[in-house]
């Protein structure tokens, strides 16, 4: 599926906001970026508590076996 024009316009709008508001953009982005990492951590943490969890994590993260 290709994204429509409104998506491109939003990229442009946001990039211009970052460029024109160098002291403001970061605070707006922190919860978004951190939210993804925190969700991911919570998920991995829960996986470790399941019987096959560690094996699944190894597959997901492409961790080779010893």
């Amino acid at each position, binding site marked *: 599926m290709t994204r429509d024009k409104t998506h491109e316009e939003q*990229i442009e709008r946001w990039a211009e906001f970052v460029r024109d508001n160098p002291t403001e953009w970061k605070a707006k982005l922190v919860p978004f*970026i951190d939210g993804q990492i925190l969700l991911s951590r919570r998920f991995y943490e829960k996986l470790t508590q399941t019987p096959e969890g560690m094996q699944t994590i190894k597959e997901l*993260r492409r961790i080779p*076996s010893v």
Partner: protein
Amino acid sequence: MERQVGDRTILDKFTEEFCEVIEKYCKYIICSGFVAIAHGRSRGTEDIDMIIEKIPFEKFKNLHEELLKKGFQCIQPGNTEKLYAYLKDGVSIRYVWKSKSFAPPEMEVKFAKDELDEEQIKERQKLPLTGMDIYFSSIESNIAFKEEFLRAEKDLEDARHLRIIYKGKFSEDKVNKIKEKIKIRNGKQQKFEKNF
């Protein structure tokens, strides 16, 4: 740019802590997706890409040990010799903050593999707009790699984002020169793969 409390993401903290150790041992660059994210691209990433100078084993051993002391772990199993062998073979080694779950974020570290990588390290720069005290590959090289080599939708969007942020402040000529070098590198690689 002065940083304010609350302005640092988990990715920022992870990257700055990691780079602080690396800088003691060798030159490095942060490249690819995180460059765009550090410039406000609102998208997620699990890994941050780092290219480091080729260093001898002893130096790597010390670097690796300090990373472990500072709370990082390498997610690939094996001793230091094995990890160094990965790097020498052009394979990246990946570090996360110590945890049982190997949860992201992750730093993907590679040795510079050719002249193009070495050139990027030579021209590394701090980018004040990011508010981060770390070295990045140049804006021109990020745009060039994203448009000429990576080319996934997210990469093209990253490049567009950087082009808007740095409008009138980067050299299009330099972007094109790097693209030419990428084409040559790709050509060599394809030839190599064909022969084996």
